[in-house]
């Protein structure tokens, strides 16, 4: 294929980074370098490299052995939970309309990702993120969490559920799936539920935001509740939930899904699901990410954060 017709050709360094991302992934410093030099053509090129790599894997990797029955059962159970959660999130009763968790792929669509690249977003964000990371690391090392940005919640939660209608009697429950707000209210009543107040960071976009998180360690699901979280344009950026698991590497919180807040919403109840089993839910955070979310957050743009005791 001719190379002479290129109008906008990424340089060698960029191509090297794209190839590495498609084949083995990038280190945080390499990811920052890619973000800094990213261009419109690069995201499409990355997709092409990923596609080529996938085709090579298909051409070479022998497909041997079916999925074990027990694993298949877990996959099907995951699917049931996923679609039930999605259906519940879309249910209008008792929940502000339009506040639906979006299905996050491991990475965003290339075009959308390109649109959301922060580019020269400024040193202020970076400095704030660095401070936040230091705070997070200190929190994981410390027996008690820092008090400035996070606070433990003692039951019952001071944040009233936004559901105004009483929950349906149990006998009627099968007729209408519970809304996220109803599920959250029920979860709050259970004694083993982990409850966390989410504190706003110093990020200007977080000004005035209050919220809390509830997490059921048995069911491995939970909900975030916000008041005052600004509406987002899903084509430009999305909110992404992160769960800090005390049993995992603190640098890599578990993805809890992406979500949007519409312009007319004042409160939001967002179902949280985790890709991985959460053994010790130590904290929750919400970041602003490019559309579709990210696999590993640089925690550059954290809006709210909270830790459990």
């Amino acid at each position, binding site marked *: 294929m001719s190379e002479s017709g290129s109008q906008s050709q*990424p340089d060698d360094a960029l191509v*090297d980074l794209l*190839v590495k991302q498609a084949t083995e992934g990038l280190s945080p410093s390499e990811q920052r370098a890619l973000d800094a030099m990213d261009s419109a053509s690069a995201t499409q090129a990355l997709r092409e490299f*990923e596609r080529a790599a996938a085709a*090579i894997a298909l051409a070479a*990797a022998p*497909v041997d052995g079916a999925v*074990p029955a027990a694993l298949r059962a877990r996959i099907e159970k995951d699917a049931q939970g996923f679609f039930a959660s999605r259906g519940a999130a879309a249910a209008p009763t008792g929940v502000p309309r339009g506040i639906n968790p979006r299905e*996050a792929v491991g*990475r965003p669509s290339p075009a959308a990702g390109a649109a959301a690249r922060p580019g020269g977003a400024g040193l202020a964000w970076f400095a704030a993120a660095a401070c936040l990371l230091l705070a997070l690391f200190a929190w994981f090392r410390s027996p008690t969490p820092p008090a400035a940005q996070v606070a433990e919640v003692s039951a019952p939660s001071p944040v009233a559920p936004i559901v105004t209608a009483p929950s349906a009697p149990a006998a009627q429950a099968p007729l209408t799936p519970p809304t996220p707000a109803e599920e959250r209210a029920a979860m709050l009543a259970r004694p083993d539920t982990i409850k966390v107040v989410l504190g706003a960071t110093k990020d200007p976009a977080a000004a005035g935001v209050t919220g809390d998180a509830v997490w059921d360690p048995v069911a491995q699901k939970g909900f975030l509740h916000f008041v005052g979280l600004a509406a987002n344009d899903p084509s430009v950026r999305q909110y992404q939930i992160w769960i800090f698991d005390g049993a995992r590497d603190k640098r890599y919180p578990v993805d809890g899904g992406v979500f949007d807040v519409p312009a007319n919403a004042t409160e939001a109840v967002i179902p949280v699901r985790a890709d991985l089993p959460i053994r010790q839910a130590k904290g929750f955070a919400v970041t602003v990410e490019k559309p579709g979310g990210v696999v590993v957050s640089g925690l550059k743009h954290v809006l709210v954060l909270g830790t459990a005791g």
Partner: protein
Amino acid sequence: MSSSVLQRIANGDSAAVRECIDEYGALIWSLARRLTRTPSDAEDATQEIFLDIWRSAARFDAAQGSVKVFIAMIARRRLIDRLRRSTNEPPMDPVDVLDTVAWSDPGTASEVSVEAEQASRALQHLRPEQRQVLELGLLHGLSQSEIAARLGLPLGTVKSFMRRGLIAVREYMNIDASGVSAGV
């Protein structure tokens, strides 16, 4: 059937979920076992990959490629992410079994996707050492640095082989290379 499975999944069709597992489960399971550290990791990775598929189903565009490649891309993204999180241990597949890797025959591989067949054809035009770099990187999960150390090659050579190999495959897949051919 394949072309509509993801759309049906996006619409919440539980039967399509089972069909997807039937059709692509073995593929994902094979990829996961090859690029994870332990059997337990492979199971966790497979669960994560299927969740990614459920979430991404609505974004599948048949004009951009086959369902199989779409799913393989999702699987590889997740597996690469997991590999990057734990780099101190080798994947389950020892690299010594490299000789057992058999590239599919593009002339007879009726079960592989069109893209995989194109990839096979492209790979046959590469030098053996280039193919070896691709095998180590894409099939065994070794980093470029690890490949360089294992093969006794300069890192720059490994980067060049990987880059040229991917570009060659991409061109066989009729992807417009106008965006990233500089310096290749």
